């Protein structure tokens, strides 16, 4: 049970050694745990730990007694899981370092660089810092229990003094408590798997763990992230519940899964979250009785035998009588059959599986957003006023406390429209966004999106659903081949009785026998409790992913590999035709089903003649997923803070002409970096080209969209390309995507090429959205930028791209991102940021261009090339919160057309601007300003590439403006930005970080 933390303390003592022995272990791309859901299965001891793991151990092993080493290997899953976070912390530390140095003077850049590269490279030093912060946290958390590892004995205690275990309490669906010790830095999935194991549950993908955050909102625990980071200061108290309500529970493979779903639904019904009529309450209640008590026994079951059950939010005597009456009619039904009947009726309820969130429309009217398997539902009071099926939704995003969906244009409409909703706060907006992303992926996609391998610029949340999709889980379930597991239906009755002292089951002393006796007939004696082996069968992700097609029988016109191939190709051509067999309307609810349901209810009518259903308006509120009990805070945001961060990444490669580089770099900023001699990696030029010194500066600027408008002179627009830019967050791999700095995020609802269900709904247009896709073709790194730009209409740009590629091969090892996975960074609209010196300018004549440009670059001929791409004006109908769009009678008077302007300028200028070699031929400087804007964020990346004689320098300046509620953790945001910058350009270094903070009181929209 030795955990990594323990070993880290050793590292502390020998940081130097570690640094030098394992500098290579820091490959950023590897430290994030694979998003592949199966790979993540931490239960498998063999799951490969992140890269740093083994190396670390190697380094540390010298200091560990052999027996301890062995233990470690047994618990390797943990290190593997938690490897990502440490990286992040190290970045923080680096940031401090940098700030310091920055203060001290830019002249020290070269040393900084050295150090930084080291720190990037040496994962082993990270734990040390992490430890510090951990210590702090320990002090603040009362509920955490520091449990020295008993097994390690005294010496181990010493060694592992930093290892901390925390007891997690999980409320199970039957109301009982499950406690489990987890390592403090364990990820969500560790705990989740513990719970599933305890429950003997294999079809676990429908379930999840949730917790209450500080604001008492219920949040889902992300399995891929550390628990501690998610719950922050909240209790280590979780609830196990259904996350995705299967559309057709009869398709579940195991009864135990259905049973758990029943328990969840009973809870939903009793709490009022799932409203139903009197008749349905009675019917469902009767199935509950049959399942848990067996046949009605007039001797044993007096009228009051059910008074301990809760069938409805406000249970009346009358209801109980009906329930009993119906119970009698179910004689002979087995518990499993009763559960199945229960589910058949429950699944038809209109609010089944609908996750409700409070929101307001543009006019401030209170509405509810309901996320469900088929899409997004909009309710006003109890009425459905609109509905957006997944196929209709092109993009989901949030910005601050607003949540947006971009709607596919209808048959008659020309433009996409965006509908915005106001959530109570930023967190709520993010929460609904996440739920949408997850539901879309789970129910509509065949497999989760693959994480991008590289990122160029990323902003916002990189959150993605990484678990199995419904298609995958069905596939996996079909492989389950174990005898039906034994499980005990805990009588609701008993549970309610034992609420004061709910049974606490510990992992260690888990005994399957719980209450028995009482349940007599209801017990399912399905023999055997052997399930572990089966689990293995389920694990292989590969199987699940690949075999989907066979099971679900959808059109496989291009799943998996083929699809990717085409994407790549498309990328080259700058065209991405969106595949649109999205029509995934689920038809699980067939007419017959519904009618049957109706019939089944109507059968009961006679016995219910006198029943009076009581309307319970208040029930509605209870349905709120987020907050069963609490109301959302609808406060306006406090203050708007802006943080401006500039990161300078620079990388210098010299082959020999080191001396000259500094001059070549000409640009002012470049000079600071120019000193980088020895420490910089030496990169021999393959082409025999002169050495290239690359100084990369990144500036990420986030601005309001409004600001962009003035910048794009409409007349200049030659071609209107709908570019949607922005911070697209396609990766799941981000280390700390949970940070508050993600003020926004977008999610493109990519239609799967293969659909999970047969969709029959034909009304959805199937046209491809080329414009959007173009934008989605993200450059995966610097080298891919050219490609992205090529996508732009400007012919000149296109030609150059290919030429540029070879030169920018710094990142060559990074795979190209597929178009839809692109990080937002590929900014599509480049805007010349005023702050940058190199910034070329829209004024430069666009004439030179194409052919010549590319050739020039390839040949390194001295030429001055200036091409300025005309700004692209994007026009889009933005209907803000027009929830009534569907119902609009007059043709959208409310719809306010908003012109979205985006400009892109790509300029290649002569070096004279640098002050280096005035207009001298032979010097080519490439400046690219790339700006991506989303509704809320603007990222400006300025890349200056100088190629002169013996060296080329690329400088990327990133300006990041972080705007958000007062609860932003600026340090974290900064750390995140730096970390991302470094991840994106692993071979460059950050030379300067400028933090500029502005706080203004925002008269917020709320």
């Amino acid at each position, binding site marked *: 049970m030795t955990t990594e933390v323990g070993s880290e303390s050793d590292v502390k003592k020998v940081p130097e050694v570690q640094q030098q022995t394992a500098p290579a272990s820091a490959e950023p791309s590897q430290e994030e745990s694979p998003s592949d859901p199966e790979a993540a299965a931490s239960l498998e001891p063999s799951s490969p730990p992140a890269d740093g793991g083994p190396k670390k151990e190697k380094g540390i092993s010298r200091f560990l007694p052999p027996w301890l080493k062995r233990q470690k290997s047994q618990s390797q899953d943990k290190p593997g899981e938690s490897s990502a976070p440490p990286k992040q912390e190290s970045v923080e530390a680096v940031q401090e370092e940098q700030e310091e140095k920055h203060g001290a003077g830019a002249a020290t850049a070269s040393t900084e660089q050295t150090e930084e590269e080291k720190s990037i490279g040496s994962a082993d030093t990270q734990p040390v810092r992490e430890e510090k912060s951990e210590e702090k946290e320990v002090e603040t958390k009362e509920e955490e229990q520091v449990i020295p590892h008993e097994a390690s004995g005294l010496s181990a205690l010493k060694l592992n003094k930093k290892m901390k275990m925390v007891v997690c309490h999980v409320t199970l669906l039957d109301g009982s408590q499950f406690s489990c010790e987890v390592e403090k830095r364990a990820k969500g999935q560790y705990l989740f798997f513990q719970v599933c194991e305890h429950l003997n549950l294999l079809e676990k993908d429908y379930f999840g763990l949730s917790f209450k955050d500080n604001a008492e909102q219920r949040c889902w625990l992300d399995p891929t992230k550390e628990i501690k980071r998610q719950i922050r200061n909240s209790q280590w108290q979780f609830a196990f519940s259904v996350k995705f309500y299967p559309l057709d529970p009869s398709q579940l493979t195991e009864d135990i899964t259905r049973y758990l779903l029943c328990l969840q639904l009973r809870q939903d019904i009793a709490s009022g979250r799932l409203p139903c009529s009197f008749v349905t309450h009675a019917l469902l209640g009767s199935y509950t009785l049959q399942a848990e008590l067996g046949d009605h026994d007039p001797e044993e079951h007096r009228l009051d035998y059910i008074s301990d059950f809760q069938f409805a939010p406000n249970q009346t005597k009358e209801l109980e009588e009906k329930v009993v009456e119906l119970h009698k009619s179910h004689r002979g039904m087995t518990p499993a059959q009763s559960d199945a009947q229960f589910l058949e009726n429950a699944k038809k309820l209109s609010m089944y599986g609908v996750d409700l969130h409070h929101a307001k429309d543009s006019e401030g009217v209170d509405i509810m957003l309901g996320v469900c398997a088929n899409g997004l539902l909009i309710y006003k009071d109890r009425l459905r006023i609109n509905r957006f099926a997944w196929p209709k939704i092109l993009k989901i995003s949030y910005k601050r406390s607003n949540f947006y969906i971009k709607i596919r244009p209808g048959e008659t409409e020309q433009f996409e429209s965006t509908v915005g909703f106001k959530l109570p706060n930023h967190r709520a907006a993010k929460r609904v966004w996440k739920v949408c992303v997850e539901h879309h992926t789970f129910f509509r996609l065949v497999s989760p999106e693959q994480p991008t391998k590289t990122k160029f610029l990323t902003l916002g949340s990189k959150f993605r659903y990484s678990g199995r999709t419904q298609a995958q889980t069905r596939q996996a379930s079909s492989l389950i081949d174990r005898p039906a597991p034994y499980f005990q239906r805990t009588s609701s009755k008993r549970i309610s009785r034992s609420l004061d002292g709910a049974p606490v089951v510990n992992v260690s002393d888990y005994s399957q026998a719980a209450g028995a006796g009482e349940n007599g007939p209801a017990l399912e004696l399905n023999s055997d409790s052997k399930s572990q082996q089966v689990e293995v069968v389920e694990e292989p992700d590969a199987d699940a992913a690949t075999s989907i097609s066979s099971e679900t029988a959808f059109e496989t016109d291009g799943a998996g590999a083929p699809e990717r191939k085409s994407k790549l190709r498309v990328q080259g051509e700058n065209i991405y035709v969106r595949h649109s067999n999205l029509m995934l309307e689920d038809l699980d609810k067939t*007419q017959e089903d519904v009618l049957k349901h109706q019939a089944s209810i109507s059968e009961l*009518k006679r016995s219910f003649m006198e029943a009076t259903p009581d309307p319970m308006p208040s029930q509605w509120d209870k349905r709120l997923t987020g907050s069963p009990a609490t109301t959302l805070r609808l406060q306006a945001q406090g203050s708007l803070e802006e943080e401006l961060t500039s990161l300078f990444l620079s990388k210098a490669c010299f082959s020999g002409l080191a001396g000259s580089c500094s001059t070549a770099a000409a640009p002012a900023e470049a000079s600071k970096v120019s000193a980088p001699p020895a420490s910089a990696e030496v990169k021999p030029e393959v082409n025999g080209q002169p050495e290239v010194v690359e100084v990369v500066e990144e500036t990420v600027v986030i601005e309001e969209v409004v600001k962009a408008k003035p910048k794009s002179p409409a007349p200049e627009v030659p071609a209107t390309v709908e570019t949607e830019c922005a911070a697209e967050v396609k990766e799941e791999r981000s280390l700390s995507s949970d940070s508050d700095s993600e003020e926004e995020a977008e999610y493109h609802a990519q239609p799967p090429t293969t659909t999970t269900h047969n969709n029959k709904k034909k009304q959805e247009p199937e046209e491809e959205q080329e414009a959007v896709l173009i934008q989605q073709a993200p450059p995966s790194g610097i080298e891919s930028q050219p490609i992205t730009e090529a996508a732009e209409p400007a012919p000149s740009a296109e030609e150059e791209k290919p030429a540029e590629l070879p030169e920018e091969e710094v990142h060559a090892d990074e795979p190209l991102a597929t178009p839809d996975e692109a990080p937002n960074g590929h900014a599509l609209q480049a805007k010349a940021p005023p702050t940058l010196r190199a910034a070329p300018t829209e004024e430069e004549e666009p004439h030179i261009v194409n052919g010549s440009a590319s050739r020039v670059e390839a040949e390194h001929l001295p030429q001055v090339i200036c091409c300025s791409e005309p700004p692209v004006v994007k026009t889009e109908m933005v209907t803000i919160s027009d929830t009534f769009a569907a119902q609009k009678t007059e043709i959208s008077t409310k719809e306010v057309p908003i012109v979205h302007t985006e400009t892109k300028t790509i300029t290649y200028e002569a070096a004279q601007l640098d002050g280096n070699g005035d207009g001298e031929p032979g010097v080519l400087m490439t400046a690219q300003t790339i700006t991506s804007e989303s509704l809320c964020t603007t990222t400006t990346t300025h890349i200056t590439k100088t190629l002169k004689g013996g060296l080329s320098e690329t400088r990327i300046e990133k300006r990041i403006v972080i705007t958000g509620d007062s609860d932003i953790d600026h340090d974290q945001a900064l750390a995140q930005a730096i970390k991302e910058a470094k991840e994106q350009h692993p071979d460059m270094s950050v030379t300067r970080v400028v933090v500029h903070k502005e706080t203004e009181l925002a008269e917020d929209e709320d």
Partner: protein
Amino acid sequence: MSGFGSFTHAVVRALPQSLAKEALRTGSLEVDLLKAQEEHDKYVSVLKHRLGLEVVELPADEALPDCVFVEDAAVVCGDTALITRPGAESRRKETEAMKAALTELGLSIVEMTDESATLDGGDVLFTGREFFVGLSMRTNQRGAEILADAFKDYAVSTVPVQDRLHLKSFCSMAGPGLIAIGASEAAQKALKIMQQMSDHNYDKLTLPDDLAANCVYMNLPSKGDSALRLLLQVFEKLKDHMLIPVSNQEKVKVDGALTCCSVLRI
């Protein structure tokens, strides 16, 4: 497919003399009371004899000229009857007799007591899977909310109705999962909205005349599929159905459609 449309009872109400002169109408046509009476008798007789429903006939009330259009006074689904609050002031009292009759039938009664709510049954389309409520001159949001409360099992979506009196002035269910819809712009617009709002897929049967889209579909064990249809338009796609033509010309003059004249219960 069983269940939908299998009615057992029907509630109708006799024509008052005052219908000819005082009944509310959107046009200004004269009503031939005699002819109207004839049509109504035929209608009731079809329900009673041809379809074998148990028909409850309420007496006319001269003070309520529109009382023959019982559909507006109540919405029945399953074992629950929602007694409405009709949008027209002059019709509010029509619900009293209806409530008594439905209580008599053993339905559990939900009343719309909210003073701000209005709802005409003619604006309520129950498809077997969900409700659509037309927001019209006679029905408002609040009324729809109360309906949603009364029938919690089902989704209730609202649909704006323009240029027509009621939602069912241009549509109705012509079979399980089959919506009969008029060809007019207003009707088509409403259909689009309904399709967008629904999780289900409906077939549609478009009829050139909006009024023809108002029919009564029944699926009776003894009779097979039946559809009461108006005038002579042929439901070509409904070959399986037994079509029972019923003339309703006179009542149409006072905006009465076929469905208006009965409240059916399963």
